[in-house]
């Protein structure tokens, strides 16, 4: 069966895209689809290693996408849950999930369509293959946005991020900034009213026709933390029994994929077991955030500083950022020592920005982008230390 399809493609479709064919300029587009269906049967060229590891870029990227699926599914349900909580309507599990799915899936589709569209165009212009990097970015972008964001903004931000954040540097593997965060930063600074406040996090929040129940609020925990360090309330305005637990489970307002630390931890487990994401970045990131949280607790000058250090780990986009974005191997530090420094500073600075600048409570995003820029510098010093050590050895021998 699969052989028959492969033969059909090779015989009937491919010739039009090959050199001299009618559609030869579109070969990268055809190639991307064919290699998606079939891992090509190329064999090693006879120089160098004859056998190769079973892993490739597609598998690596797909693993990351799979790791995000729990957060995506939970995000769908939570979108519905938050909506029904705000309106006070009765609902079932499926009502909530379907409401959320209808809200979230268009965002995912638009993100992939816009991003892959740009990738295909660049591949055709540059006559290179379509790289797999956007498979991950395309899922990250909707998951780190509020559910009410207009679709055209998602498309605009995605196109901006892929072109300016990645393609101008040479495509996947060459970019300096995390693509998904570039998209999010673009939206935050271009359309701040759609990225903050208490309307955008709950389905229907920006729609005048949707009637919310009295006392309901769509404020995120981070927004509430500017006024109080405990006793957070949910979307219906009712105080959480145990706000740490609610935030850990994810039944709080927030960006689609970021609310459930539990769902993110399932993803983290997939990434760590397969070894695709760096445990060094995750571990040191959590340590950095916790240390900063503790330091603020000691200082305690305002309610936000008094938010317990462990609360910081489950609020806002911290968990999502540290698991899925800080670990992006292209934009993170590349050396082992560098990863500890990089991760720690992301956690440390992320909580610092969050607490010091309530206008941008999503400090983790800015911290990761800042450290993306700093990562090559960290690596430079780590590599430089190795070079110095080697030169010392030379001098010891010469002496």
């Amino acid at each position, binding site marked *: 069966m699969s052989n028959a399809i492969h033969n059909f493609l090779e015989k009937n479709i491919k010739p039009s895209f090959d050199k001299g064919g009618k559609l030869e300029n579109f070969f990268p587009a055809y190639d991307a689809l064919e290699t998606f269906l079939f891992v090509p049967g190329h064999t*090693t060229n006879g120089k*160098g290693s004859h056998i190769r590891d079973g892993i490739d870029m597609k598998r690596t990227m797909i693993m990351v996408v799979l790791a995000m699926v729990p957060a995506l599914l939970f995000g769908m349900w939570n979108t519905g849950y938050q909506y029904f909580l705000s309106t006070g309507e009765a609902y079932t599990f499926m009502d909530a999930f379907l409401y959320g799915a209808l809200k979230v899936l268009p965002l995912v589709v638009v993100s992939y369509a816009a991003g892959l569209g740009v990738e295909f165009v660049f591949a055709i212009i540059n006559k290179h293959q379509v790289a797999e990097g956007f498979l991950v970015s395309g899922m990250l972008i909707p998951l780190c946005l509020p559910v009410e964001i207009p679709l055209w903004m998602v498309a605009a931000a995605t196109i901006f991020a892929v072109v300016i954040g990645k393609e101008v540097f040479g495509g996947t593997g060459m970019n300096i900034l995390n693509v998904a965060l570039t998209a999010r930063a673009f939206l935050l600074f271009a359309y701040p009213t759609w990225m903050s406040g208490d309307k955008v996090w709950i389905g229907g929040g920006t729609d005048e026709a949707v009637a919310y129940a009295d006392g309901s609020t769509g404020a995120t925990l981070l927004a509430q933390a500017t006024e109080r360090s405990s006793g957070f309330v949910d979307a219906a305005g009712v105080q959480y029994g145990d706000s740490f637990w609610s935030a850990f489970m994810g039944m709080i307002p927030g960006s689609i994929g970021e609310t459930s630390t539990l769902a993110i931890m399932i993803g983290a487990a997939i990434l760590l077991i397969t070894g695709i994401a760096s445990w060094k970045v995750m571990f040191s990131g959590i340590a950095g955030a916790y240390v900063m949280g503790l330091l603020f607790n000691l200082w305690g000058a305002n309610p936000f500083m008094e938010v317990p250090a462990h609360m910081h780990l489950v609020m806002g986009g911290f968990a999502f950022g540290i698991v899925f974005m800080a670990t992006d191997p292209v934009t993170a530090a590349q050396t082992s020592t560098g990863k500890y420094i990089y991760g720690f500073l992301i956690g440390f600075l992320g909580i610092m920005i969050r607490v010091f600048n309530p206008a941008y409570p999503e400090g983790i995003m800015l911290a990761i982008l800042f450290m993306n820029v700093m990562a090559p510098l960290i690596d430079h010093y780590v590599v430089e230390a190795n070079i110095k050590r080697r030169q010392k*050895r030379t001098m010891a021998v010469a002496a």
Partner: protein
Amino acid sequence: MSKVLKIKRGADIKLVGGAEKILTDLPMPHTVAIKPSDFEGTTAKMLVKVGDEVKAGSTLFYNKDNDKIKFTSPVSGEVAEIKRGAKRVLQEVVIVVDKETKYVDFKAADPAKESRENIINKLCESGVWPFIKQRPYDVVANPNDTAKAIFISVFDSSPLAPDNDFIVHGQAATFQKGIDVLSKLAEVHLTVNNAAKADEAFLQAKNVTIHSIEGPHPAGNVGVHIHHFMPICKGEIVWTLKPQDVLTIGRLFEKGQFDGGRIVAITGAQVKTPKYYRTVLGASLKTLLADNLKEGNNRIISGNVLTGTKLEEEGYIGFYDSHITVIPEGGEAQMFGWILPNPGKFSISRALVSWMSPNKKYNLDANMNGEERPFVVTEEYDKVFPFDIFPVQLVKSIMIEDIELMENLGIYEVAPEDFALCETVCTSKIATQTIVRDGLTMLRNEMS
């Protein structure tokens, strides 16, 4: 013996088709060939022409840049063909082998009584010298240089590798003679595998420093040993050779003959009876693999699967190889192969299921299992690269042709074979061994 060095970074890729420890004599091959392409960095200048009679030890060609380095025939016979490729580059010098081998007499000698100069001359005249390679650059050593040490790895840790203990067993005296010769040139270091019991020829060798190492491949790579026991700095030279080469040197001084006899392990999933065979240097595959291949599209490799050279069925074993591996060629596209668990494929990543069966022996083919991409995954090479060197940074410095950076990052200490596992495990399928070879060539041209 000095203390045991344990390395952790590396990978043993277990393959089916290991050689059984049985030694069979093969008939003299009909033809043998010496391939100038085996001698990296050498421009060959022919001395013989088609139809010339040669003896074992007669010079066939020499190095244009250094006429002291001669390449001689391992057998006696008649030069049948001189194959040239693009730009008339010499590819193969084919010799039809005589029934009875006639040798050039280089005179037996006692190395203890010979001067260093005489020894080098004898090695060069007989064509044994090219067995000695040098670091940096991984090329044939220059007899005019003085090396700070000679390193011999007496075990090969690569997949399906021949067992030198088995090969050298019973030839301790010849081996010692070879060591005696080499120790007149520079101090000699042997490295044995601590985990296996090495042959007495190695353990009881005199005039040498014996090191011991254990761990996964590339624990047997001489580059790893030099890096840990006597690192090379800019301007220093270390010479390397393999145990069977030491035997050849020993026999040269015992008998005064260039004896091209070799024991070759024929291994791999596509070989009917994988075992050891006694033959000569440069033997033709027609003799080596006669009636011993399984049906199918086969990839024949002179050497091991990580660093060897692909051969055609009418090809000849490489000068430095005492190992032939035959695996299936593969080449089938796999539908949705990027998500299938693929238990039959080796991986150091846990994104395939093979990590759950660490002792499984694989029947791997030559499939790329993916397409080439820019570097994305980090710290992947580090897992299989037991050097205090940043492998990806070094490879990138070669890609951008930054000579000073290459030097700083440690290019003098590495050879392409040290990057073989990096290339094998690379998610981005980057041809690291080719890149490192290009870097070494670039550097060597710059320095000369």
